[in-house]
């Protein structure tokens, strides 16, 4: 519907304003990351821009500057008496390994299952779907103890074997993301008419060929969207990662280690937090169109 110019202007203003409100916490967070600690905790006023910006927080968390050196040689309290290992480069690497690994596994498993659930009719199909959704019902805290025990028994904790440690956390994330990926992908597969597979089969394709050469390429946008969602969920998960790992430090866990006995190291928390937003955001931008379509899980068709 056409809006009059005045209404249109009003809408533009409102849209910018609302988006601005939602951007504000992130802006504030990023701003805090370049503030000296005294500007974060000013008892008399809110400090907006009148501070001397510092990149020390990024230097320490991302570029390997030594926190101890800064504290002792340069006399920077930065909030606390302590000094610690704040170099988070390994954590970023860990997060990437875990997120990419689990996303890859989730996608392979989910794509296969979603294809079958979309294309084949068999007894128990609906039960299977409900079972899949049910995986998301489980509060993560309920499976912490069993998982730790099981992994320890299998020698799959990261202190027993680092590689298996990664595998362990990757598999658990794969399961965690399976429901959303599978349901999303199924909706994309459902959008491709069955006739297409059948045409392919008549053209001489086996079931596998019609899947891999025809149907899968047709939903690659949806696959990308599901993959991004999985990546984000893995990138942001905290509780399982905290308890299943001892040396592998995903970013959300690493940030929690900046909560110390003498204070929260807000500078490092905000710096790493800000930096951690970037990769996911790039991915989300790349597939936003498909994401917007995919999130409705096929409920739009009749």
């Amino acid at each position, binding site marked *: 519907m056409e809006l009059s110019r005045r209404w249109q202007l009003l809408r533009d203003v409102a849209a910018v304003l609302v988006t601005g409100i939602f951007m504000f916490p992130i802006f504030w967070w990023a701003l805090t990351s370049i503030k000296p600690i005294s500007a974060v905790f000013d008892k008399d006023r809110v400090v907006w821009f009148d501070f001397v910006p510092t990149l020390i927080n990024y230097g320490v968390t991302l570029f390997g500057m030594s926190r101890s050196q800064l504290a002792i040689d340069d006399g920077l309290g930065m909030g606390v008496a302590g000094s610690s290992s704040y170099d988070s480069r390994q954590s970023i690497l860990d997060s990437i390994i875990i997120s990419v690994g689990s996303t890859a596994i989730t996608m392979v498993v989910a794509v296969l299952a979603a294809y079958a659930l979309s294309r084949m009719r068999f007894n128990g199909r609906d039960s299977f779907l409900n079972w899949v959704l049910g995986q998301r019902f489980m509060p993560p805290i309920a499976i912490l103890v069993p998982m730790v025990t099981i992994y320890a028994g299998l020698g799959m904790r990261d202190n027993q074997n680092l590689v298996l440690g990664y595998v362990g956390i990757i598999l658990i994330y794969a399961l965690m993301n399976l429901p959303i990926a599978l349901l999303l992908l199924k909706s994309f597969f459902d959008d491709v008419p069955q006739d*297409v597979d059948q*045409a392919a089969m*008549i053209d001489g394709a086996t079931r596998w060929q019609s899947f891999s050469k025809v149907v899968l390429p047709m939903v690659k946008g949806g696959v990308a969207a599901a993959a991004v969602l999985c990546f984000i969920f893995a990138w942001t998960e905290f509780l399982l990662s905290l308890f299943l790992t001892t040396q592998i430090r995903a970013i959300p866990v690493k940030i929690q280690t900046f909560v110390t006995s003498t204070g929260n190291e807000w500078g490092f928390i905000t710096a790493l937090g800000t930096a951690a937003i970037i990769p996911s955001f790039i991915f989300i931008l790349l597939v936003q169109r498909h994401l917007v379509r995919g999130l409705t899980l096929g409920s739009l068709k009749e």
Partner: protein
Amino acid sequence: MASVTLRNIRKNYGAVEVIHGVNLDIPDGSFVVLLGPSGCGKSTLLRSIAGLETITSGDIEIGGRRVNDEHPKDRDIAMVFQNYALYAHMNVKDNMSFSLKLAKRPQSEIDEKTSWAAKILNLEPYMARFPRELSGGQRQRVAMGRAIVRNPSVFLFDEPLSNLDAKLRVQMRTEIKELHERLKTTTVYVTHDQIEAMTMADKIVILRDGIIEQEGTPLDVYDHPANLFVASFIGSPAMNLIKGTVSKGAVVAANGARLPLPPKDSRARDGQHVVYGIRPEDLELGKGFDIKLSVTEPTGPELHLYGDLGEEEVCAVLRSRAELKRGEMVGLAPRLDRVHLFDADTGKVL
């Protein structure tokens, strides 16, 4: 090229049987149309021939070979789908050559065959386009191109024209027919549109509820419907079917009107309950029975009259023009040699 034979085909979905023992011979090189209302099982039958559905019992033979357990790709068939089922991520050429690539044919053969098909179907300028960049008719042609490059022994068409607009449909109808004339490939064509069936088929097979009601050439089926269903389904406007009782060389309708029968008609005895069938174009103005005119529709070449005979509506198609008014009583005379009589209880032709 091959003939297709169906023997006592049955198909169940769970406890429900949807095809009840179909027997059908499709001679080599013929164009057979499976016609019927939606849900009659025609698509299921077609898809069974294609191998996209398993049948519960019976045999399917293509070229004398039993193919029940063959994968679709091994049945030497090609199929065109209602919604074309094009591969959206491939261009026209790739769509058409997909089957050849899967069969690992040499590139030279692939090129040769696709350009041959493109030429036949006037697709040459569009070979690099993607399906989304094509019009409906062009997509339809690509789907056909995909089918013909393989040079299969049987073509299967599943309502291929229903997504096209009326004009294009007529055009494509002709093209498909021409293609068949040219390639002489055995063709099974499913539609619910009787015009398509009449114009294209060598043989029409009329299905209802999983049973073949009648098969025969188009005119045969039109002129000699085997039962009430076929009579009402074939022809547009549909055949007038009026219930009545036979009495002294005529059928007495519910309102007492006497519908004349040919002299010495021996198909029914007096007092028998029958359905009197007469096609609209077999009625002309004259002395026979009277209807109360409700609508007149001039279509140009013809004049369609709709009127009431008691509770029943009667339609007549006149070649001549006449000044008639709504509400007027009009006398209609049937061509007596074209009167059909059906048993009111079984629906079978008498």
